[in-house]
């Protein structure tokens, strides 16, 4: 076992390290940017989904059903198809349809409905009595959203963002199809197509570490914000 490890490092090609490093950075850029953008765009959609639902502060069943339908539509399209289908849109936004930056566009578009549903769920988890109490104190709908719902749901929202970024790591592997690069792409091109099992293994290890790290960080932040013990 020990001998195998030594041999592995002795025969290690420094070029591999560069490739792995670049791919990791690409993944982090794609996932980081699309998580941030999707959270930003998904939050208001989630707020609308929650607050327009039945018996909530801005009950609007028609709007709620339309919005819910759009979100479901977005979530039901397989990512690989969505990515290709919106290439014209990607080109308009990013100026190009290939590369890491371009991949951020479909990743974000795919994640927005996902975030919206998670955010909606987080908000509907809030005890309705707390919202009622705020109403009884004369809080406006905006005050209820910003001073009650968001702070009360913050731990759940953090976990939603964590879940989104972990999901996007998975999606980003497909971004290789439009030259997005990243670890997933590396695993397919080197590990699978060129039969480099060692590189495949290393990318998988990095991915596992990434996912574990993000999840642990998210759990830790959520735990800190959670005063319900």
């Amino acid at each position, binding site marked *: 076992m020990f001998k195998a490890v030594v041999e592995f490092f002795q025969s290690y090609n420094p070029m591999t390290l560069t490739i792995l490093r670049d791919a990791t950075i690409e993944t982090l850029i794609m996932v980081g940017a699309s998580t941030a953008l999707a959270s930003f765009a998904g939050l208001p959609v989630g707020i609308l989904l929650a607050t327009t639902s039945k018996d909530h502060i801005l009950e609007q069943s028609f709007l709620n059903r339309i919005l819910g339908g759009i979100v479901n539509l977005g979530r039901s399209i397989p990512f690989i198809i969505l990515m290709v289908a919106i290439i014209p849109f990607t080109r308009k936004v990013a100026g190009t349809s290939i590369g890491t930056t371009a991949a951020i566009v479909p990743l974000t578009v795919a994640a927005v409905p996902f975030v919206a549903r998670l955010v909606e769920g987080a908000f509907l988890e809030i*005890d309705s*009595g*707390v919202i*009622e*109490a*705020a*109403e*009884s*104190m*004369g*809080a*406006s709908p905006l*005050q209820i959203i910003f*001073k*009650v719902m968001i*702070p*009360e749901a*913050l731990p759940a929202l953090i976990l939603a963002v964590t879940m989104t970024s972990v999901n996007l790591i998975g999606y980003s592997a497909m971004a290789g199809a439009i030259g997005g690069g990243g670890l997933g792409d590396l695993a397919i091109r080197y590990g699978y197509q060129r039969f480099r099992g060692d590189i495949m293994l290393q990318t998988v290890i990095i991915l596992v570490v990434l996912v574990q790290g993000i999840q642990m960080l998210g759990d830790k932040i959520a735990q800190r*914000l959670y*005063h*319900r*013990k």
Partner: protein
Amino acid sequence: MIRLNNVVKTFPGKTAVHALQGIDLHIPAGQIFGIIGQSGAGKSTLVRCINMLERPDEGEVWVNGLLINNLGGRRLRDERKKIGMIFQHFNLLKSRTVYKNIAFPLELAGFPKGEIAARVKSLAELVGLEDRLDAYPSQLSGGQKQRVGIARALATEPDLLLCDEATSALDPETTKSVLQLLRRINSELGLTIVLITHEMAVIQEICDRVAVLEDGRVQEVGTVVDVFTRPRSTAAKRMLQGFLQPTVPDKLAEAGKKLLRLTFIDQKAHQPIMSRLVREHNVDVNILFGRIDQMKDTPFGVLMVEMDGDSEQIDTAVQFLQEQQVEVEVLG
């Protein structure tokens, strides 16, 4: 203070729930007014109609001379700031400390920071939580949580406090202390308090007047002393059964002797009426059950007695008791 005229509320659905079926109620200022009813009687809906958390389908809700059920938007929110409310499950913000919870309504109303700090401090003292300001609700006991709820409800200096089963989730000991606090607030701040409950003991402890609610209708309204000692409606009688009114064991009822329930209210509870009864009227009295208690500030006693003697003597004895303003009820 509050006047409800023919308030109707129905919750539609497969089997529509007629929560309120024409409520007429007047709640005078400065009092502690209790609304009692079994679960499903409509009392939660009723109290929510006072601050428009539920909008009545019909009828008028007047608060402080203002027809509140025509208001919406900002006007309604401004009125709500003058009405405090506390809840069965406290409904505190879990993400905020005690300090921040009490400050919450003041933040909503746009008070400056300095003013908020001063008010929170004096409110925390009022409810006895000045040393728990940095705690989160999860670190508090039920009674402490309700005290935060009360402080929060009083923050904007309302002249009306609505209590929705405020002590139902608390143990008897804590219930007592929370009720004492409400009573103190009522007398010190002159605040009108409307409380709904299913517990007779709560009404007995602090209320001046009580309304008995059943099937979405007010069955009876009056002072607590009147309703508790001379209930007229079947709803009130049923609810009082076993509370102040001891039930008659079947065996005794069968025995054929005169069975009476005597209620002594206020000053009568201090006087030696029974010994005069025996001395002056030549009847034998056997006491089966006795209890002396207090309704808010009014002492009262209940005695269940068996009276022996010839029927004429018993009749004059009963007459004597009635002359002494003792409530007499013949049970058998």
